[in-house]
């Protein structure tokens, strides 16, 4: 049993910033991350001397990692949180053993996952996420080569393509599925109060367009015998060995949805469920806070500020800081966070999630349930995603709805003709990550003597 003032889950921009801030005020901190190294998706393998597209962000990430190392926070990499009990008490799997952590406060900084883009044939090997390819580029130095295509919408497409080209990669073509609407243009003026973000995006796009053919259509079909071999783009056939898909990101709420009483709300602009939070990041469950994209998509800079704000609230709650001091320290951070979020309305309106596919397309990759079966269930009176499990088994596979959840939800809402908020989100259950009986057995009292670290 480890005891710590603040347990932080997820070492991306929000989690690292929270850890650094909490240590500054004398709290003991344990920071957990599933990956082999801190950084999260955005600061993965960040370098202090980065150049090229996304370099500023990489340098920020490297600075955060250096500050984290100097902060005295305990960092456990390769550690997976699989349950939280009231207390809060967390159960963590690391090196095949389960550790219990009793914390004064828990800050969940679980980040975002890519919103899946189900198109015909998308389950074939060779089809991956753009975010997945960016992880390969950043953490393993793998650049695209050969017949690599990209399809979908959102800034990450252009950032990844620009980064890949700058590192000598090749991209055969990009299918831009976005559509500019009057609804989005209305939100442009507010976005222009923070023009840096948009200008960076336009610069990536320009650099990429000079070297890669860009097609504008939503008609993309994947074909191949046992793996991706061809794609049809607007009726034209191209050979392809890799297709990278992207339709923005959604908050990773796998853990918060499993906590009894932790309410979530439908964010209509972002078409996603997010935990109900106050300005500080407090959930409705005492002792549990959320910071960063796991509480609603805002990007790395806003996530970092949210991490610091949540840490200030946590150290106040634990008596390391007075309420007035907390408010004074947080005020400029909240102002900066508002400024960072200025372009969001425009981006959300510009990149409205793409429509769900035709009946034949698989939505739930694990249980292999098609859009047609989901629509048929809706026709039989199925109202929500949890009921859908009984109708179709969709969402009951190994990924526990991580990939298909938003797709099942969108398909049901569309079929029923109701707003997303009227269709319940998939309930998740602990353990939120699979664990073996042998691993669970290590929880026996004699075996659970994990050593405390990061004691301030």
């Amino acid at each position, binding site marked *: 049993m480890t005891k710590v003032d603040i347990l932080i889950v997820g070492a991306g921009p929000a989690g690292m910033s929270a850890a650094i801030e909490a240590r500054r005020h004398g709290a003991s901190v344990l920071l957990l991350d599933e990956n082999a190294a801190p950084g999260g998706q955005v600061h993965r393998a960040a370098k202090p001397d980065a150049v090229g597209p996304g370099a500023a962000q990489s340098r920020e990430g490297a600075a955060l990692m250096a500050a984290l190392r100097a902060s005295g926070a305990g960092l456990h990499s390769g550690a997976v949180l699989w349950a939280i009990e009231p207390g809060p008490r967390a159960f963590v799997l690391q090196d095949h053993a389960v550790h219990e952590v009793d914390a004064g406060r828990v800050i969940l900084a679980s980040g975002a996952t890519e919103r899946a883009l189900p198109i015909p044939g998308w389950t074939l*090997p060779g089809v991956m996420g753009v975010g997945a390819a960016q992880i390969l580029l950043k953490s393993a130095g793998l*650049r695209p080569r050969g017949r690599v295509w990209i399809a979908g919408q959102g800034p990450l497409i252009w950032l990844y393509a620009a980064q890949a080209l700058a590192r000598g990669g090749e991209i055969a073509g990009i299918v831009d599925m976005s559509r500019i609407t009057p609804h989005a243009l209305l939100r442009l003026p507010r976005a222009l109060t923070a023009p840096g973000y948009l200008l960076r995006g336009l610069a990536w796009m320009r650099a990429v367009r000079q070297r890669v053919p860009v097609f504008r259509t939503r008609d993309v079909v994947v074909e191949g015998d*046992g793996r991706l071999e061809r794609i049809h783009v607007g009726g034209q056939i191209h050979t392809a060995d890799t297709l990278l898909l992207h339709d923005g990101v959604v908050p990773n709420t796998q853990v918060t949805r499993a906590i009894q009483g932790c309410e979530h709300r439908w964010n209509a602009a972002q078409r996603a469920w997010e935990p109900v939070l106050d300005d500080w990041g407090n959930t409705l469950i005492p002792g549990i806070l959320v910071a960063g994209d796991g509480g609603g998509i805002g990007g790395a800079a806003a996530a970092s500020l949210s991490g610091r704000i949540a840490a200030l609230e946590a150290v106040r709650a634990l008596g390391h800081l007075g309420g007035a001091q907390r408010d004074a320290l947080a005020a400029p951070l909240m102002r900066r966070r508002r400024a960072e979020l200025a372009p969001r309305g425009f981006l959300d309106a510009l990149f409205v999630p793409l429509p769900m596919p035709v009946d034949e397309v698989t939505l739930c990759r*694990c249980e292999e349930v098609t859009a047609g079966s989901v629509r048929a269930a809706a026709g039989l009176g199925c109202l929500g995603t949890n009921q859908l499990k009984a109708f179709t088994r969709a969402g009951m596979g190994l990924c526990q709805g991580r990939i298909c959840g938003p797709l099942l939800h969108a398909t049901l809402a569309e079929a029923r003709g109701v707003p997303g908020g009227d269709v319940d989100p998939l309930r998740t259950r602990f353990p939120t990550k699979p664990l073996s009986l042998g691993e669970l057995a290590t929880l026996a009292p004699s075996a659970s003597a994990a050593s405390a670290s990061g004691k301030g």
Partner: protein
Amino acid sequence: MFERVEPPDCTITWQDREIPARAGESLAAALLAAGINRVRVTGMSGAPRGPFCMMGVCFDCLVTVEGEGARQACMVPVVAGMRASP
């Protein structure tokens, strides 16, 4: 497919085949760099699958590592000489 920017520094065994890898990168990255994008078939229909998310979310990359089944290849760091199979 994908190609390495940095040279490999070790080898691992996939099924009966030796493939180059870099210690510390994910097993899924090593497989993809070797041109292997099919790593398993689904239990339901036997459809082929390969790494999709690279961040431990989709479970499409499940493989056997050193005799232990159902490991996420994208979350397992490569160790020189590692043995893995579908």
